């Protein structure tokens, strides 16, 4: 057995040894150990170094509030995490633990020179220096400061684990499975109420795990616990351990992080590492207990100086003596019991040093019975020992005077400054806190949530008080849910109630200005730092915290906030509530990013929408581009082709014979109803009344600010039925906007809107041979200019499939868009592909579509317009129904700046040197001006164009439509390109090619 393991104590199984390494050295612990308890069992206290001074540190606590004993933990490749609390990490076989923030070794750390120069590194010192000479900041000081940052090292490999997330709905959620939580669960689990009890620890029980001496209703505490857990399970209570309630969100939504594998030696395949639960609870009981406060004195941070309650936990729960010759230093009764427990387990308690002049006689009797010296009315002024405490210096205090010091040899100092309620989750609710003068602490006040506090987090102390309060609160929440319940009263023996006083930093006979009396251990914030901050004018706790970094370490102030507040309020001479308590923020304890991300990783980060034809494109070598959530075929390169070559070939095919394009991503909305035409008139800028049945029109949609929002071809398939198409990215926005106007501005209109984007697969056929290919496949209409002219639409049958056929063109060639029920998309595509072989049919992607439309001057909303462009700016005044009394955007586009001279207008550009412009390049009139230049527009689209014989571009240019033929300049980094302003239509301005 390890040197400090006490046989017969604790809940660990020493019969099941578990081996692990710490800084490469092999140790053996017991099943049920944490890394901290296992190392302590070997007498190892030194587990880390502090942030600023690199002081040697050991665990000061036994739970999740631990600020010092932070280690790196590793399980093979990819599974490393820094800053793991050794007091939380359960032992597993083969665990590799490493210490942090030290060089070259934990015992000899060069960074500890900071400790010697600590007077220089006072609170906020960096605000006062490193400013001269100025250029040294960037080159010398900052890199130096940055190099010192951080504790552990970041992981550097991709995480092979996966993470889960779940919803959970319950009537009552109880956070904390200590005595009050257990009793609350039992009382609330009535009449079918669904109760969930969660605890961050590996097992339920809370303080009961550290207090086996008590008996509850005649049973020893641990027996009672075991039977109570069985009873709770039988009552249907869901008990979740290793589950931390991380945050309390609106309307009783609680985030729980459940840790599933980090404690396991063998992880079953496919087990998520952690699972995030989003719980929605009818009522919440917060039974999170209280946290013990350290005492603030010089040297209170040496390895071996530890919270008394934590020492008790290490003994009673883990069977580990944290020291064989401890001194207890306290201002609260509870630490006396720690002394008794350690003494009873074989430790030689050197003394109990109490800051109070008087304590209850029973405590003195018990101490005497064990032969422990009690020193009342004493302070501690120092400790010594380099890597482990070896003695403590204590002085009597009489009437405020600190007397002569005496030194007590020891191997541990167990301290207690009393307890402070754990109100973190309560604070997340924006609950108010009320200062309690008697307890010198904040207690819960009002909260907007349906939430009650039970047990020690409300102030009561002792097992009986916690049990009884928990039962009462459990019954109360059941009653709030309409169930009749009553809390029972528990009979507890050997309970350890008690009280104490709250102190600021301990009085000393030495200069307090030189004391290293730590308040925030990890960040090395001392009492004198806090007082310095106050001296420098920091008057709110928020300022003090930020100036000193007190409470900003990875324990998030669990150890330091209340001590910091007491010292700051003393320095300010103001009551604590006047100084304020910094708000607790979620998460309660540091929580893996992976748990937040859950399933949303890799392919599942966001859905990828694919059309029915996507698989064909993939099989045929398409390169894809993301467009919104869709992936679209960008181009179809053949062997040896780059993008330009592929696009050039695809463009030629469309212009010369026939191309086909998957247009299924286009948004589609069906506008139906007796008032459909009126709705369309009000919604779109164009007039719709005269659009004949079976005809289509290009529609332009503006916002009420007068700027273009979307566009698309709209077909009238019935007197009261419009088939509206939108841009790919704009479909959902347009639908929402239509619904908004329909439901809230024009509820009188009898119109129904249905999004049909995913109901249809849409194939565009473009090219001189488009009609020839399609005609034999279409039933019910002849594809002639007479029977089915350009801008016609029809419901018919294509290749035996029910179809909506549109004769439209986004390329300037004869064009059709065939819509068939979505699942038939690939079948139709393959039929057309096969039938089109005789015409050399070519599949093309979005890039070719973009080139072809640009050659015709058709805009892409979002590329050639950007949310600041009116229809007139885009040269589409023709699409505005000026005689309509109103439409969305009509008033907006009449605003002064939208009708002012000199607006940027869409034009074409041809470069004089026949080079291709870069999209986004800026345009100037005067190429010779100095920077900053007066920019008059930018290139919105630019492509190589075989059809034109030189690259083309579209651009927004100030007053552009009145500047046809003028030369503008595009200054690039290496040269300036001259270009001529042209019409936006580069190919076939007379539209002769649209004729069959």
């Amino acid at each position, binding site marked *: 057995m390890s040197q400090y393991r006490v046989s017969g104590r604790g809940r660990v199984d020493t019969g099941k040894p578990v081996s692990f390494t710490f800084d490469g050295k092999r140790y053996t612990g017991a099943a049920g150990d944490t890394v901290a308890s296992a190392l302590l069992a070997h007498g190892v206290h030194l587990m880390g170094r502090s942030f600023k001074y690199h002081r040697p540190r050991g665990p000061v606590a036994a739970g999740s509030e631990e600020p010092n004993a932070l280690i790196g933990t590793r399980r093979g490749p990819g599974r490393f995490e820094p800053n793991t609390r050794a007091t939380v990490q359960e032992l597993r076989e083969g665990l590799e633990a490493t210490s942090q923030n030290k060089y070259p070794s934990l015992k000899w750390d060069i960074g500890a020179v900071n400790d010697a120069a600590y007077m220089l590194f006072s609170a906020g010192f960096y605000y006062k220096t490193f400013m001269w000479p100025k250029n040294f900041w960037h080159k010398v000081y900052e890199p130096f400061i940055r190099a010192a940052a951080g504790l552990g090292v970041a992981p550097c490999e991709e995480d092979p684990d996966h993470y889960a997330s779940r919803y959970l709905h319950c009537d009552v959620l109880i956070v904390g499975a200590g005595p009050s939580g257990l009793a609350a669960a039992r009382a609330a689990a009535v009449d079918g109420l669904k109760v969930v009890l969660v605890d961050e620890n590996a097992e339920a029980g809370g303080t009961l795990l550290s207090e086996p001496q008590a008996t509850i209703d005649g049973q020893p505490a641990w027996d009672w616990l075991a039977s109570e857990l069985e009873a709770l399970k039988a009552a249907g209570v869901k008990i979740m351990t290793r589950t931390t309630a991380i945050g309390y969100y*609106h309307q009783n939504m609680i985030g729980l992080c459940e840790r599933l594998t980090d404690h396991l030696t063998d992880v079953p395949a496919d087990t998520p590492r952690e699972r995030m639960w989003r719980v*929605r609870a009818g009522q919440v009981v917060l039974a999170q207990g209280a946290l013990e406060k350290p005492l603030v004195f010089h040297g209170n941070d040496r390895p071996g100086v530890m919270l008394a309650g934590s020492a008790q936990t290490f003994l009673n729960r883990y069977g580990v003596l944290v020291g064989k010759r401890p001194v207890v230093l306290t201002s609260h009764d509870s630490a006396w019991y720690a002394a008794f427990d350690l003494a009873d387990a074989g430790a030689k308690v050197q003394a109990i040093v109490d800051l109070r002049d008087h304590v209850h006689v029973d405590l003195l009797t018990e101490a005497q019975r064990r032969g422990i010296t009690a020193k009342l009315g004493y302070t501690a002024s120092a400790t010594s020992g380099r890597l482990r405490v070896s003695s403590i210096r204590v002085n009597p205090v009489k009437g405020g005077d600190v007397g002569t010091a005496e030194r007590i040899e020891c191997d541990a100092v167990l301290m207690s400054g009393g307890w402070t309620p754990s109100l973190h989750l309560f604070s997340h609710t924006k609950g108010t806190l009320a200062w309690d003068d008697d307890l010198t602490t904040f207690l819960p006040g009002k909260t907007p949530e349906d939430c009650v506090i039970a047990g020690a987090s409300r102030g009561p102390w002792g097992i009986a008080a916690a049990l009884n309060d928990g039962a009462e609160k459990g019954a109360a929440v059941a009653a709030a849910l309409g169930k009749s319940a009553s809390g029972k009263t528990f009979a507890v023996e050997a309970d350890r109630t008690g009280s104490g006083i709250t102190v600021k930093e301990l009085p000393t006979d030495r200069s307090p200005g030189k004391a290293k009396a730590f308040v925030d251990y990890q960040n090395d914030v001392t009492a004198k730092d806090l007082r310095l901050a106050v001296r420098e004018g920091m008057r709110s706790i928020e300022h003090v915290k930020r100036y000193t970094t007190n409470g900003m370490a990875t324990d998030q102030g669990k150890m330091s906030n209340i001590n910091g507040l007491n010292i700051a309020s003393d320095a300010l001479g103001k009551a604590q509530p006047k100084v304020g308590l910094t708000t607790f923020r979620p998460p309660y304890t540091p929580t893996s990013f992976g748990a937040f991300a859950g399933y949303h990783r890799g392919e599942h980060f966001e859905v990828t929408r694919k059309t029915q034809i996507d698989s064909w494109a993939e099989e045929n070598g398409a390169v894809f581009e993301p467009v919104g959530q869709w992936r679209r075929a960008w181009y179809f390169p053949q062997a040896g082709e780059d993008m330009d070559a592929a696009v050039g070939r695809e463009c030629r095919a469309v212009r010369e014979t026939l191309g086909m394009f998957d247009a299924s991503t286009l948004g589609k909305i069906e506008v139906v109803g007796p008032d459909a035409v009126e709705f369309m008139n009000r919604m779109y800028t164009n007039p719709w009344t005269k659009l004949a049945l079976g005809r289509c029109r290009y529609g332009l949609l503006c916002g009420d600010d007068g700027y273009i929002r979307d566009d698309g071809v709209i077909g009238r398939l019935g007197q009261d039925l419009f088939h509206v198409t939108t841009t790919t990215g704009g479909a959902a926005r347009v639908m929402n906007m239509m619904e908004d106007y329909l*439901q809230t501005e024009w*509820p009188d209109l009898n119109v129904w809107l249905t999004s049909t984007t995913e109901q249809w697969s849409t194939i565009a056929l473009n090219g001189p041979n488009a009609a020839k290919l399609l005609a034999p496949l279409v039933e019910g209409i002849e594809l002639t200019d007479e029977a089915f002219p350009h801008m016609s639409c029809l419901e018919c049958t294509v290749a035996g499939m029910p179809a909506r056929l549109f004769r439209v063109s986004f390329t300037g060639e004869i064009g059709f868009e065939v819509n068939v029920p979505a699942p038939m998309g690939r079948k139709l595509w393959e039929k057309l592909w096969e039938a089109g072989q005789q015409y050399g049919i070519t599949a093309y992607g979005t890039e070719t579509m973009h080139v072809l439309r640009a050659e015709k001057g058709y805009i892409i909303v979002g590329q050639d317009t950007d949310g600041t462009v009116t229809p007139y700016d885009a040269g589409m005044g023709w699409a505005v129904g000026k005689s309509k009394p*109103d439409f969305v955007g009509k008033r907006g586009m009449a*605003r002064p700046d939208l009708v002012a001279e000199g607006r940027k207008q869409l034009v074409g550009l041809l470069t004089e040197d026949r080079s291709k412009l870069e999209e986004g390049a800026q345009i100037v009139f005067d190429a010779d001006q100095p920077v900053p230049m007066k920019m008059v527009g930018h290139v919105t689209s630019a492509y190589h164009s075989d059809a034109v014989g030189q690259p083309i571009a579209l651009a927004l240019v100030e007053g552009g439509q009145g500047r046809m033929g003028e030369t503008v300049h595009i200054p690039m980094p290496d040269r300036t390109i001259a270009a001529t302003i042209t019409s936006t239509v580069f190919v076939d301005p007379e539209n002769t090619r649209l004729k069959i």
Partner: protein
Amino acid sequence: MLLIHCPYCDETLPEAEFTYAGQAHVVRAQDPSSQDDGQWEDFLFMRENARGPHYERWRHFHGCGRFFNAVRDTVSDKFLTTYKAGDARPDLSSLLEGQE
């Protein structure tokens, strides 16, 4: 995540089903062309941005699809009530009474 009562579905459901749609009772004039620039600016952009009870619109986007109105306290984020689009603006004082 808020819980929101849809007055059309008459169910209280998580915020994930809803989209926020800005201040409620912003009236689009019957004849916008008769509005001067200031009035149109008010309609487009000017908002109460109330600190406290706020009349606002939500849409039950992933449900019935309906837009409806709500009164929510923007300090506590608590809903005082929700009501159908077109219903009269509820009286605030009676709503607040119901809140203790």
